[in-house]
């Protein structure tokens, strides 16, 4: 070994290697690994934050598109609803008018019937009364000759008025 050029000593090379190996292991475990671990954890943390932010931005974008779409459709929707409401109102109005007309017709009919029956009743009553009066008058004329026919009629009419 002593004959190597430049005074190269294999034993010293190995001692250098031992020194470097100790340095390599020591630097890895004591300094490099913990620092790298921290850096990786921080990178992961920020990556996670970035992903979360991205997700939120995407959600926001989606919501924006959705709302824009909704806004676009809102006019047509409003018009449709207006039309629907108009139709419904018209139908309701028609129904109410029809019902009112029917009711009115019923009332009128009923009133007519009632009036007719009243009219008939009054007419028959009057006829009866007239017939009675006529009978009475006739009786009185026939039976009571002292009385003037005209006075008798007036008395009868007066009596009738008092009765009512």
């Amino acid at each position, binding site marked *: 070994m002593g004959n190597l050029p*430049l005074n190269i000593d294999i034993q010293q090379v190995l001692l250098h290697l031992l*020194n470097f190996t100790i340095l*390599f292991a020591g*630097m890895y475990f004591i300094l490099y690994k913990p*620092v790298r671990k921290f850096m990786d954890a921080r990178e992961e943390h920020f990556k996670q934050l970035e992903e979360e932010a991205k997700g939120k931005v995407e959600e926001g974008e989606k919501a924006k598109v959705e709302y824009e779409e909704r806004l676009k459709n809102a006019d047509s929707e409003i018009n449709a609803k207006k039309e629907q409401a108009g139709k419904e109102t018209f139908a309701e109005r028609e129904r109410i008018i029809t019902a009112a007309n029917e009711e009115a017709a019923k009332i009128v009919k009923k009133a007519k019937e009632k009036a007719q029956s009243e009219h008939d009743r009054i007419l028959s009553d009057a006829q009866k009364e007239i017939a009675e009066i006529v009978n009475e008058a006739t009786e009185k004329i026939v039976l009571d000759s002292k009385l003037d026919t005209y006075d008798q009629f007036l008395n009868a009419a007066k009596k009738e008025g008092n009765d009512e």
Partner: protein
Amino acid sequence: MSKKRLIISAVIFAIVIAALLVGIFLTNDPNHVEEETIQEVMKDAVLHEHVKISLFGIKDVNPGLIAGFIVTGIMLTFAIICRIFVIPRFKLIPGKFQLVLETAVGLFDGTAKSNSPHKYRLLRLYMFVAGSYIFVGTLFELLGVQAISTTGKPISLGAPLSDINGAIMMGCTTYLFLLFNGLFVNKVRGFFGVLKDFSLPISMSLRLFGALLSGALVTELVYYYTMTRFIIPVLVGIAFTVLHALIQAYVLTMLVSIFYGEATEPHEKKEKVKKVKKNKKELSSEVA
């Protein structure tokens, strides 16, 4: 500071420097002869034939090995201090020191990913440790840590990789790292892919050794002569130590990442193109 005061300070500084220079040159013994000639100093810096340090009385070793042990000790101590006092207090938004540590750890991520996008986790670790060792080891030279050689003379410890044995270790370890990763990832094909670059450990070792030794040699040269011991070492120190520390760490890590990327690259099967044998008649008709 007023102008008058500034001038007075500059004059005092110049007088002090001049007095020191006069003192240095007057006390310089012209008859003094260096114990070693510059040739011997340079040769010893390369070969370490005479200047050795006893390793706990077991073996006489090159100063570079002791420097390597000290650099490892410094780096591990620093790592332990960081592990106990700094890392547990890491925050989501990093402070200055945390930022320095994270930058150091993640410094080679980009290079590792770009050169070996399919497999880079182990590569970036190796690049971090090897790069840090070369960088800190080279800067260690600036500290001028003293040790006692076997001859009893004090010597200044240089960079661990300016020792040929250290450079060989780094080159060969890197080569073996590439070789076995090629084997694990691409099986025999990957192994032989790296094996064919058998000159790689030699070139890596000698590049490191040459680059770092040149710094040591220039420093030796500068400090050998009295005249060059002023101002020049500042420039030399920066040019040959700090820059070498950066450049060599960068060069080695770049080479490792490039070769690693090649060794662990997934192999795509090529479709065999059926060769249509043409008979002589067809060929002759085509020629005609």
